[in-house]
């Protein structure tokens, strides 16, 4: 049997979850290849792997959201046919998805009740649930206002609602898929305390993550996945981050980016008292001012949803600021098309929604944003042949595979899509490049490539503004780090002085002066 042993207490009791030969394909993609896994009851078990390694697929199979093509699932030693989330809930399995499965206009109570109403009218069920929730909140230190609307709650609290939802349904096994992506390091630590609390009460926790720090901090045992296969099981106490990293990637990896100290030149981007108000009238960016100089990478750190996206959109002309000024080489910018003409490149946070047009072939995507340049159109007609030639050139230069300009954007993997976007934005030789989440959903090989390119561009004297929620990425790439919380800048740190703890405090809104 696979070697995820417990710490003594598990002897005798059957494992909470046992997977035997789980196999799953999505079309030509073999997402899970003959997976075997044992999770002992009353432990916190980590599953670690790169993006696309198949971790989420596997856990969604355990939760019945997908059905395996073949394989056996045992819960508490008993074979169970889990064909839907209903079966999983029935078997005592709960899952907190990466994207929360909450109905925003509903209250916390209504969300928890959904699917577990206990009768065909709501009244009696609501009263019962209210009582049960109060007990659960006390037992596990999960304070939530159960009459608040989800839309009004911060993500950290929404996550607690998800945990409560699972516990309310009687989950003895709780699966969490990348739960810390939306949390500050301190909030993540708080979450881990909750998980340990669950463990103390005899429940089993499965934690999916791609962050090794969390594995080391929170788990008893860990399994490593790579390209759809389960490659190793370890007791957390017996392994190291280096070993896990190597197992994840299949070779030695450079965890830090090689680069010389920056030699910043004159200011390229000047942001003065920028204000952004969103469609709902909420102030997302509040009085933000900073400068990015030629030849430096400035990183914007922060938990997702603290105004970084809106800032990026305002700087790139997608969103009109409600106040303040944005100057490129001392000149104001109009809209997104104007930004491109003034040599501002932008790799957007969400490449599939924004950076690419899904149904378009690669070559048509290669001019998105630059369609006004005379190089691509003459008398209003597109110069298709030269566009295709250029696209092919870039695909080869940026190692986009396959280098096929006629292939639809969706036919490329995440990493190759990202390289295509990067090629488009870099090859138009911008003076300032805005980069949002450059490595989201991208495999390690592509991450290394993208990081190298960014540093090379910096060394060529260009200004780069990097927005990322991956603290490790910011810390290894940025020369200067600006931290945002709730739309404001809470601090600025030089790369040399940056620590995860210090940045974490700033990300939680505790600024230097106050700390």
């Amino acid at each position, binding site marked *: 049997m696979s070697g995820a042993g417990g710490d003594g207490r598990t002897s005798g009791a059957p494992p909470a979850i046992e997977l035997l030969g789980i196999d799953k394909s999505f079309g030509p993609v073999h997402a899970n290849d003959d997976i075997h896994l044992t999770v002992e009851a009353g432990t916190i078990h980590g599953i670690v792997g790169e993006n696309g390694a198949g971790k989420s697929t596997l856990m969604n199979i355990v939760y019945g*959201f997908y059905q395996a093509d073949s394989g056996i699932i045992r819960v508490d030693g008993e074979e169970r046919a889990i064909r839907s989330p209903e079966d999983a809930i029935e078997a005592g399995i709960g899952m907190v998805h990466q994207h929360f*499965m909450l*109905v925003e*206009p*509903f209250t916390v109570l209504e969300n928890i009740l*959904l*699917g*577990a109403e206990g009768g*065909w009218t709501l009244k009696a*069920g609501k009263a019962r649930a209210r009582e049960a929730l109060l007990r659960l909140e006390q037992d596990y230190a999960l304070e939530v206002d159960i009459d608040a609307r989800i839309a009004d709650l911060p993500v950290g609290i929404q996550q607690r609602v998800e945990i409560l939802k699972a516990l309310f349904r009687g989950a003895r096994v709780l699966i969490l898929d990348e739960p810390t992506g939306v949390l500050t390091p301190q909030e993540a630590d708080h979450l881990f305390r909750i998980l340990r609390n669950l463990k103390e009460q005899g429940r089993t926790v499965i934690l999916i993550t791609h962050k090794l720090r969390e594995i080391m901090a929170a788990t008893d045992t860990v399994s490593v996945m790579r390209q759809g296969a389960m490659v190793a099981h370890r007791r957390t106490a017996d392994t190291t981050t280096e070993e896990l990293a190597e197992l994840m990637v299949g070779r030695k990896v450079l965890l830090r980016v090689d680069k010389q100290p920056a030699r910043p030149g004159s200011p390229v981007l000047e942001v003065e008292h920028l204000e952004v108000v969103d469609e709902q009238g909420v102030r997302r960016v509040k009085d933000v001012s900073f400068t990015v100089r030629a030849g430096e990478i400035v990183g914007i750190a922060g938990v997702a949803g603290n105004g970084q996206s809106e800032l990026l959109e305002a700087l790139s002309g997608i969103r009109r600021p409600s106040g303040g000024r944005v100057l490129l080489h001392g000149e104001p910018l109009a809209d997104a098309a104007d930004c491109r003409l003034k040599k501002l490149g932008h790799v957007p946070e969400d490449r599939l929604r924004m950076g690419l047009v899904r149904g378009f072939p690669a070559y048509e995507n290669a001019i998105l944003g630059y369609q006004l340049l005379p190089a691509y159109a003459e008398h209003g007609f597109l110069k298709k042949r030269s566009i295709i030639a250029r696209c092919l050139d870039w695909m080869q230069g940026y190692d986009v595979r396959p280098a096929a300009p006629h292939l639809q954007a969706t036919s490329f993997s995440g990493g190759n899509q990202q390289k295509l976007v990067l090629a488009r934005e870099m090859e138009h030789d911008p003076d300032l490049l805005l980069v949002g989440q450059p490595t989201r959903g991208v495999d390690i090989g592509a991450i290394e490539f993208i990081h190298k390119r960014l540093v090379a561009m910096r060394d060529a004297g260009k200004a780069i503004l990097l927005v990322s929620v991956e603290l490790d990425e910011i810390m290894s790439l940025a020369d200067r780090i600006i931290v945002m919380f709730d739309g404001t800048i809470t601090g600025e740190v030089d790369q040399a002085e940056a620590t995860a703890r210090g940045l974490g405090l700033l990300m939680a809104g505790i600024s230097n002066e106050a700390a």
Partner: protein
Amino acid sequence: MEELATQVLLLTASTVRLATPLVLCAMAGLFAERSGVVDIGLEGKMLGAAFAAAAAAAVSGSAWVGLVAAIAVSWSLAMLHGFASITHKGDQVVSGMAINIAVAGLGPVLADAWFRQAGRVPVSGEDARFLPIELPFAEAARSIPLIGPFYAEVVSDHNLLVYVAAVSIPIVAWVVYRTRFGLRLRAVGENPSAVDTAGISVDGMRYRALMVTGLLAGIAGAYLSIAQGAGFTRDMSAGRGYLALAALIFGKWRPVPAVLACLLFAFADAVQARLQGVELPLIGEIPTQAIQALPYLLTILLLAGFVGRAVAPRAIGQPYVKER
């Protein structure tokens, strides 16, 4: 003074009569749209039901048989819409449009083939239609000032389906906000993934919602041909399905505001009928066509957000596909 009071009462009574199919249809649409399925096919369902009601009532001589036939046809069309837009994830607007057009043609074709009356199906006979019911004490109460005539003219003396429509409003509101079905219905239109992961079938919920839609739209159709009218005529729904949809949107997909919008449109229609050929002071005679166009114009102004803004259920119009 007396004259004016009578006029107002008559206008109110005719508003109620004209609002009935709109209310039933809007309530029908509420279920579909709240579940995340756009239902532009209310028009076709109502028209198909009107034909079925007329045909069945004409043949059987029973209004009840007509009503059942109406519901059966409307329900089948709703299931067809579900088959296309839920099971096969087709475009919901296209599916609704297809149903509207096919039914608009099929009604006259079948009417012609079966009844040979140039695309009409006349319904005669007392039992073949839902006739106005005089509520108890209506005549006796007339002498009571204000309430009496109101009771006699506006509350009493409607056919059964008008009362069905009236009763449906609180029932719909209760179902949507106070029951398990309603909770799941509202959830599935906002975030189907949340419903799916809670162990509830998204497709199942949407089909169930469409079943209710079919039922209510069927009653609306029967009302047109065997209660308010006496038979089926070509295109007799005359855009009421679209108008009901507009009322639903104007009511922000909530039962009571949607009913109020229906009453507003029905009132405009009632006024239109009264004003035909009447010379108004200062303005002169208003062309009928202008008043006919009024509800549509009003809807556009409302939709344009000059009066409030409607936020649709978030998942509306999108077929549910599990994300990967």
